[in-house]
């Protein structure tokens, strides 16, 4: 109940309580769009966990996360929407794809992609979904965002509320993330020091070691050919296919 109360506080600012003027049976265009995008997002999310092809799962995740961003947009939270795309689609999914392609990403089905924990996972997922739905419904039951007024989620509003009302949790999260960052560096340095002894030191760049682990990147690949663009007489550089 306290969590719900917190969420209610959060919603108290820009959103207005105007349930009286809206009804569930007279949906506006935005509400219909919101529902449809929500259905697409849900479908993509279900496909993410049910598809038997690993890389397809990551790509369906892109659709699901993009759908969420569109939902944010429809609720006028433009800043949150773009950050969602930037962080999740632009960085997290790329990281997942990178990891998949670096380890194994067969084309076609992966018979071993199924986990034995299916029922436990389902239980946890349903439980957390139920908790979230309950909290959100309890907190926002009769709250409507006035879409016609000034944007309730514009960058200025988001920034002001983040750095005025919520600056303490923000800083706490920053410290947490910083600790995780330092921890990641410590772990990777420990793991990276062993192969560095075997291989010539020039092959071990100090940072982002996994990305250079692809074997051909280490090969002394024709250093005497410094002209990637050396043109054929009639075709410039790599556009030679033309």
């Amino acid at each position, binding site marked *: 109940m306290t969590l719900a109360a917190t969420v209610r506080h959060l919603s108290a600012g820009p959103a207005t309580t105007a349930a009286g003027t809206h009804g569930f049976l007279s949906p506006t265009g935005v509400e219909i769009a919101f529902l449809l995008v929500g259905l697409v997002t849900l479908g993509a999310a279900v496909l993410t966990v049910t598809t038997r092809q690993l890389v397809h799962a990551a790509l369906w995740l892109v659709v699901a996360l993009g759908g969420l961003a569109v939902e944010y947009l429809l609720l006028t939270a433009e800043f949150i929407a773009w950050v969602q795309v*930037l962080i999740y689609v632009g960085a997290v999914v790329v990281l997942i794809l990178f990891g998949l392609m670096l380890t194994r990403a067969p084309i076609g089905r992966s018979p071993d992609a199924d986990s034995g924990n299916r029922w436990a996972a389902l239980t946890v997922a349903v439980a957390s979904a139920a908790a979230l739905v309950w909290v959100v419904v309890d907190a926002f039951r009769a709250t409507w965002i006035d879409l016609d007024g000034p944007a309730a989620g514009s960058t200025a509003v988001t920034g002001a509320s983040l750095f005025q009302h919520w600056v303490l949790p923000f800083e706490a999260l920053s410290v947490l993330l910083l600790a995780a960052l330092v921890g990641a560096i410590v772990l990777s340095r420990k793991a990276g020091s062993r192969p560095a002894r075997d291989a010539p030191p020039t092959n071990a*760049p100090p940072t982002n070691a996994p*990305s250079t682990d692809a074997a051909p990147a280490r090969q002394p*690949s024709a250093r005497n050919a410094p002209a*990637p663009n050396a043109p054929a007489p009639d075709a410039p550089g790599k556009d030679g296919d033309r």
Partner: protein
Amino acid sequence: MNDVLDVTLRLLIVFVVFLTFPLIVGQTEHKVMAHMQGRLGPMYAGGFHGWAQLVADGVKFAQKEDVVPADADRRIFQLAPAVALLPYLLVLLAIPIGPGEGAVGQVVDAGVFFVLAVMGVGVLGSLMAGWSSANKFSLLGGLRTAAQLLAYELPMLLTAASVAMAAGTVSLVGILDAFEWWWLPWQIVGAIVFFVAGLAELQRPPFDMPVADSEIIFGAYTEYTGLRFALFLLAEYAGIVVLCGLTTVLFLGGWHGPWGADGLGWVWTLLKTALLAFVVIWLRVTYPRLREDQLQRLSWTLLVPLSLAQIALTGIVKVVIR
């Protein structure tokens, strides 16, 4: 009705820009590279100095057979070029070329975040192409693309954040409204870092390790033919236009100029963009390709610290002049 007409007209203009500017950059590249290397470049197509060479290329690409390898993941293989190309079209919508709200396709409140987020999505196209081709070279290219994106997205974001701090807004139109001439020396480090990181994100030489045609045979695009390959090429050149336009808007003052900013602001924007595009071509002819570990080292040990220093400098100056 007027609103509909207005929106249609804007979209149409942006679309035409999207279709023509990359070709102009491509043709300029043919000619500039040729002259820098003491040859003529295309001379016959179209008559005058081979101006129609890229049109002819387009016709040729359209006639080629569209091949999908037998072992490839068919749908993703076919979808990838669109994913690589469309983000740049969306980004073009948000780049203002003149003063006021009339000279931009669509005013986006969080413009800086919009353009960087959507540009990042474009790289997903290369990853999809690299994986779905079922080809070792393509997979290597995809891996290198991903590593490069992860390394260079950070300095790009940080330097863009520095400009946003200086202007006090994340809207591209707002940043241009707040621009003063002395921002140029103030943000010069950020500008260079942004431009270099953008080049790396576009995989242009000297950062073209992911496509390295002489080593891994064009990386993620090895298996592509015909129109789909042309779409990837178009995405690269559209990327050059977008990157140069963004650098102009964020760091070089966009439509601001010594004179005539009100009526001829768009000329200044186009002039600066063209100049930067020339620099992009120039760099391609000048520098050899960086090795993969040199690529990573450049970003993590040079560009990231530089962009952090730029942010610190921006913060200090911002506090002092307040």
